[in-house]
Structure formats: C-alpha cells, structure tokens
C-alpha cells in the first residue's frame, strides 16, 4: 500500500486501468453516475491545482467551467462540427482565464478571491441576460446528439480519458520546472520574487492552466448533460468544487479525486433518503474541516502509513 502513496504515478496508472474496466463493465445507471463523477473530479482537480499548488483561492472557478459549457453548446448549436465544437469550449474558457487571470493575479489572498468572484458573477450575469445568444435562464438544449453519438459507454470512456489526461497534465506540470516555480510562488511569493521569478506571470500561467482544464470539464459536462444553463457559471458551481477540494484534503494531488467521490456520493445517497440532507452535509463539511484539515485523503494516508510502516 505504501508504494501507492509514495509513487502517485503507479497509483494513478492502477486507478486508470481500474476505472476503465469498471466503465466497461458498469450498467447504464452506474455509467451515468461515474461519468458525472469523473467530470467533477477533473473540475475539482483544476481548482485544487490553483489552491493547493499555486496558492490562489478562487471563488469564481465556475466562470471557466460555464464558459466551457457555453463555448461548446453555442458552437454546436451554430452547426460547427462536434469535433471542432468540443475544442472551442476549452478555448473560450482558456481565453477568458487569460483575460480575467491577468487582472486577478495582481491581487493577493482574499482580494484575489473576491475579484475572481466578481469576474464569475459578471460572466454569469452576461450569460443570464443575453437572451438572444444564450437563451438566458432557459439555457440551451438539444444542440448536440446525446453522449456525442458515442453511446453512453463510449462517452464515459472519453470522459475518463480526458479526466486522466487532465490529471496527467497537472502531474507533468508539477514535476516540470514550471511546477516547481508555481509551487515556489504559491508557497512564498516574496522569496520566489527575490530569486527572480515574477509572481504575477507565474500565477497567471497557473491560472490559465486551471481555467482551461475547468473549460474541458465544462465542455464535457455540457455534452454529458445535453444542456447549458447560466447556473453552470454561478456561485453554486464555484462553491461545489471548493467543498470537494477541502473534503479531499488541501495540498495533495489526489485530494480532489477523493473529495469529489465523497461529496457526490454523500449528497447522492443522502438526498435520496433524507429530506434534510443539506443539514447532514453541513455537519460533515464542518467536522472534516475541523478535525481533519487534510481531508479524507489525509485520513487515508494516515491509515495506510500506519498499516505499513515506512522503510
């Protein structure tokens, strides 16, 4: 077990193969649930890259997710070939992240968070108000064939590939000089600047990477749901991945994976059986945050390390 914690690549590869086999074997219901889960994992991981490694807490990550949705949905509706439309979604998100990011990284900490929030709310409002283009609150539906004509299983495998690809990109970046620099700036911007790194430039690059991955997640979500609504760029979609990141555990690569599984699993099960599921979720969120600041991944790691002492 210890090897899995110490060599995330091995763990990741195993997880990928396992997930692929599960998807191949899963029935329709689980296929649906897992597809959604995988998209959320990618979305949460992109936010985690910002928070845990780049030291930037965004309250408005939904902007790029939502723009991914609309970029895809609008271009598909306009008759662009699907294969191109799925590229346009992330591109729109990346473009927006580049612009918003350039403004946001000028600020630190809570002010950064608040500006990301403002950017997301502006995006949401524009989507909500621009009826002629976006359909306003009625959103967009029926712009692309269900599951992109790949069938539920094919689409699930595509999502898995994108999710794994996204995680791999994050991993590669983190292992490259760029990742080292991003982590440095995230940990101690003053020191990093004294070494010669431009805090803003580095943060901007990280912001754009996170934004484009969120855009990929958004595009997939839109294709999966078969719709696009302004909500997807709204506050709820900014908070949800934040809760996942915290539940999973700050500062870890696999945290968001666990966090998304826990959050989606819990709300899914709870809201099915209990009327007041939000109350229970609230208690869970508070308990985990207070008693296990490193989240569920921290707990798992502790258990594994206890079971197989190092060496």
């Amino acid at each position, binding site marked *: 077990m210890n090897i899995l914690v110490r060599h995330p690549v091995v763990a990741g590869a195993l997880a990928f193969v396992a997930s692929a086999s599960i998807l191949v074997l899963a029935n329709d219901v689980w296929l649906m649930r897992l597809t959604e889960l995988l998209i959320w994992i990618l979305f949460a991981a992109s936010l985690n890259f910002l928070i845990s490694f780049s030291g930037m807490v965004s309250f408005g990550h939904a902007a790029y997710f939502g723009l991914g949705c609309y970029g895809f949905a609008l271009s598909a509706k306009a008759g662009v070939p699907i294969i191109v439309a799925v590229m346009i979604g992330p591109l729109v998100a990346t473009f927006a992240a580049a612009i918003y990011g350039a403004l946001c990284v000028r600020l630190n900490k809570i*002010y950064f968070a608040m500006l990301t929030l403002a950017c997301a709310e502006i995006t949401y409002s524009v989507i909500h108000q621009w009826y002629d283009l976006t359909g306003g609150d009625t959103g967009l539906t029926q712009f692309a064939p269900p599951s992109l004509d790949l069938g539920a299983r094919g689409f699930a495998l595509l999502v898995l590939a994108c999710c794994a690809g996204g995680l791999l990109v994050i991993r590669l970046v983190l292992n490259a000089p760029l990742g080292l620099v991003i982590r440095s700036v995230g940990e101690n911007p003053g020191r990093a600047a004294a070494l010669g790194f431009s805090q803003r430039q580095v943060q901007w690059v990280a912001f754009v990477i996170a934004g484009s991955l969120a855009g990929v997640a958004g595009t997939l979500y839109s294709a999966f749901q078969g719709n696009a609504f302004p909500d997807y760029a709204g506050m709820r979609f900014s908070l949800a991945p934040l809760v996942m990141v915290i539940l999973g555990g700050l500062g870890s690569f696999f945290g968001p994976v666990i966090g998304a599984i826990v959050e989606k699993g819990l709300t899914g099960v709870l809201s099915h059986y209990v009327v007041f599921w939000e109350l229970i*979720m609230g208690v869970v969120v508070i308990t985990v*945050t207070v008693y296990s*600041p490193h989240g569920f991944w921290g707990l798992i790691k502790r258990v594994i390390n206890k079971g197989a002492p190092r060496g």
Partner: protein
Amino acid sequence: MLFVQIVNGLMEGVMLFMVASGLTLIFGVSRIVNFAHGSFFMLGAFLTYQFAPHILPGTMLGFVLTVIMAGMLTAFVGACFEVIVLRRIYHAEELLQLIVTVGMVMIMRDVVRVVWGMNDLATAIPDAMSGAVNVDSYWFPIYNLGVMGIGLLVVVVLWAVVRFTRVGVLLRAATDDRGMVALLGINQAYIFTGVFASGSLLAGIAGGLAAPLGSINFLLDTTVITGAFLVVVIGGLGSLSGAFAAALAIGVLKAVGVLYFPRAAMVTAFVIMAIVLIVRSFKARG
C-alpha cells in the same frame, strides 16, 4: 424624480449597511469571510416573526423589543458557532475557515426549513410605523424612514464605540494586526467571540428590521449575502466607514440605475466591485 430615487437609494443603502457592518467587523478582526452572515440575517427575520405576536404586538416598543430579542438570540447562536467550531481553526488556513461557514449555511437553511417550513411567512409593520410621508406627489414610507433612522443610529453607535471606548481601541488594534491584541494582554479568544457575536447581533437586527418589509423564507440567506459581500469588498474589507460609504453608494446607484439602465441592475454592482479591486491592485505595491 432623481431626488426621490436618491432618497430611496439611501434608504436601501442604510439597510445594506446594517447587513454588511457585521460582516466587515468580523472580517476586520478575525479575518473570517463569513458566508453564514446571510443565514444569521435570516434567523433574525424568522425570530422576529416568531416573537412579534407575543411582545406588545403592533406597538413601537413591542417591535423594538422584538427585534432586539431576535438580535440577541442570533448573537447567541453566532457565539456558540464561534466557540464550538470557528475557534478550533483560527490557526488554520483562511480557506478552511470559509468552508466551515459554508457548512454553517447548509445547516442553518435546513434548520430553518425544519422549524418554519418552506412557505413564505410575514410579520406586519407595527401600526405606529405604517403609512407614508407625502412630499409633492411622492410617498416615503414611514417604516423605511424609521429603519433608515435606526440604521444611522447604529452607525453612530458603532462609530462611537470604535472611536471612544476601550473595546474600540482593542478592535482597531486587532483590525490592524491580529498579534497586537495578544501584546495588549487581552485574551484573544474573548475578542474573537465578542466580535463574532456582535457581528451576528447586527445581522440579526438587520434581519428583524427587514422582516416586515417582505416575505420571510428559507432563501433569504442567499438573497442577502451577495449584496453584503459587494458592500464589504467595495468599502475595503474590514473598514466600517468604507462599508458605510459603499452601501450608500450602491443603494443610490441601484435606485438611480432603475431610471436610466432598467436592465443592468444585476451586473453593475459586480462591475463596480471588479473596478474597485483592479484600481486597488494598481495602488497596492509600496
């Protein structure tokens, strides 16, 4: 018409400040972005609904007592939340503190649904304060003017407390530098609890005052919190005077905006917030 809208805007602005003041106070001292502030507002409104029929109903005095009681109980709930939960994570990252307050939002919403249900509830404006003042052909509701008066009173009281009392000195010290309080030989925990309770008190009172104006339901929390954030951020996090100015500005801008840009209400406030932050970023270094 412009003048009328400015007055209406000011009335709304003072109300906004009532909500935002607690939020900015809490942030200033304990650096907590309290998402649950709207939930405390909502609690204050529901408690006012609950007490109003039992405390001298219809009278001014009864209403004031009701709102104060609602505020105090809200403050108590806030203090409990601070002591039981928040206190354990002051040393942790700001993000964790924020998430805890998000958890609180979820809990409070369901608690309210359990106790009061999902339907819209209402409490009446006290008879003494119903009616309106007519100027020209324009009407200004007495209740709204009254709330503006109470709001201004709160502003003065807050200002006096911060400016002249020992508590105020501590608050200012703590807002400038969290470590300072410890140096002053005061138990930091008391200050944080006190501030959180006061912030919740303000939220509860604001909720109580807003209760007769509209329907009271479990969605009030989200309705309120966005506006409060806008005010606090535009006013400069932690600054009471800034929040006051920002609240009035937003209120007036919204009211005047209805005249000239009837469809832009939603986006304007956030655009202002973004501009304020961006301008700030250019002045930040040095």
